[in-house]
């Protein structure tokens, strides 16, 4: 048995020496692995002639696995906030170490000879790439400058239009509104003068609010009634207590009892009691605590009776009536 050897392509350990590299499975695995790597190499080769420069994006940190060297390689070349696409991979493919590793890899795994050339980049090609890279870097810088100039022109235009609008608005504002009183025109002019002063300084940051212009345009009668600003007292924006939640001075918390008083509670209890049916009544909700006399439960039935209940009840009632009559007689006499 040959010593165990691990094949990185098949990711398996074999005990039959290097014979397995000629097997179909190994060749198939090798082909698949190379096919995985090939598109990236082809894309890099395309960039040889026309290098592309782009703004740096974290996606440019991506790496690619070089099968021949068995190491991870940075795909793109980044410096500062610019990236040259496929720069890293091209650099690696042109390096002599990669050439050596590729040769060894092909020898060990018995790959197809024609395929090997695809994964190598000659130093001449790499020099050509470097030239094109320099050219594209220059053109990228020029483009960036143009964009910046355009943006500056746009901002200047907007500032100019804003100033025009402010000037046109200042002119009709000569007659003060009788409703507003003295405070409003003063404050309006005050803000306007401040606005005019800020417009002198070139500000690239935030443009003054467009709402200002819309208010003029709508013509809706919004009356300004003065700033509601007393420094001592807070308002809704500062989170003060609302006026309806403020405790009155004459009401102390001890006096204010919520809910029924004790007398009212007792009255309720009485009412609840009355809600119950008379305690002497037989049936549901019978108050078992109430006392009952001996003759409470009218049992009409005798012991040895037969027949219906009404018969015995009838009998009982007539006897009771006769008994009552007798008692009445006795009392009279």
């Amino acid at each position: 048995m040959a010593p165990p050897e691990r094949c990185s392509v098949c990711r398996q350990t074999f005990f039959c020496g290097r014979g397995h590299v000629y097997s179909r499975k190994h060749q198939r695995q090798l082909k698949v692995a190379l096919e995985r790597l090939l598109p990236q190499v082809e894309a890099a080769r395309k960039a040889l002639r026309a290098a592309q420069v782009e703004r740096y994006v974290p996606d440019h940190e991506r790496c690619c696995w070089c099968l021949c060297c068995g190491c991870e390689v940075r795909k793109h070349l980044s410096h500062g906030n610019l990236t040259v696409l496929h720069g890293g991979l091209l650099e690696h493919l042109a390096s002599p170490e990669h050439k050596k590793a590729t040769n060894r890899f092909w020898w060990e795994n018995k790959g197809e000879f024609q395929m090997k050339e695809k994964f190598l980049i000659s130093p001449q090609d790499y020099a050509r790439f470097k030239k094109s890279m320099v050219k594209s870097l220059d053109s990228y810088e020029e483009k960036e400058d143009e964009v910046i100039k355009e943006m500056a022109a746009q901002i200047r235009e907007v500032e100019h239009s804003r100033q025009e609008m402010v000037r046109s608005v200042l002119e009709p504002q000569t007659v003060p509104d009788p409703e507003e009183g003295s405070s409003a025109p003063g404050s309006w002019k005050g803000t306007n003068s401040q606005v005019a002063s800020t417009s002198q300084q070139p500000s690239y940051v935030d443009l003054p609010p467009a709402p200002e212009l819309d208010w003029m345009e709508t013509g809706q009668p919004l009356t300004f009634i003065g700033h509601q600003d007393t420094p001592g007292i807070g308002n809704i924006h500062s989170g003060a207590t609302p006026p309806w939640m403020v405790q009155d001075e004459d009401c102390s918390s001890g006096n204010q009892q919520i809910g029924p008083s004790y007398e009212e509670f007792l009255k309720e209890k009485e009412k609840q009691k009355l809600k119950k049916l008379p305690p002497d009544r037989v049936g549901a909700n019978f108050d078992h605590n109430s006392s009952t006399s001996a003759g409470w439960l009218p049992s009409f039935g005798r012991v040895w009776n037969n027949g219906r209940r009404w018969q015995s009840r009838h009998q009982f009632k007539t006897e009771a009536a006769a008994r009552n009559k007798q008692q009445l007689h006795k009392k009279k006499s």
Partner: protein
Amino acid sequence: MATIYLVDVDQTPVYTHYFDISYIPSTVFFFNGQHMKVDYGSPDHTKFVGSFKTKQDFIDLIEVIYRGAMRGKLIVQSPIDPKNIPKYDLLYQDI
């Protein structure tokens, strides 16, 4: 059903000051004694500044406030088209 009260700002200085009513007309909404805030897209969520463009806007706003309040919300999103909401300048004193 909503009850609408027309309040004169000169007769309620305390509330005018509390709600910071600088422009009239301003509409403040309440539900069960709780002040309801609405995000109109304007800087102030505590009241509606200006007049409503159409009656339907007003009705829709009340309905949205009602639905939100019944669900226990304290602030709701206004259904009114932003171009129908009057724009005003939030003037800060001495700035």
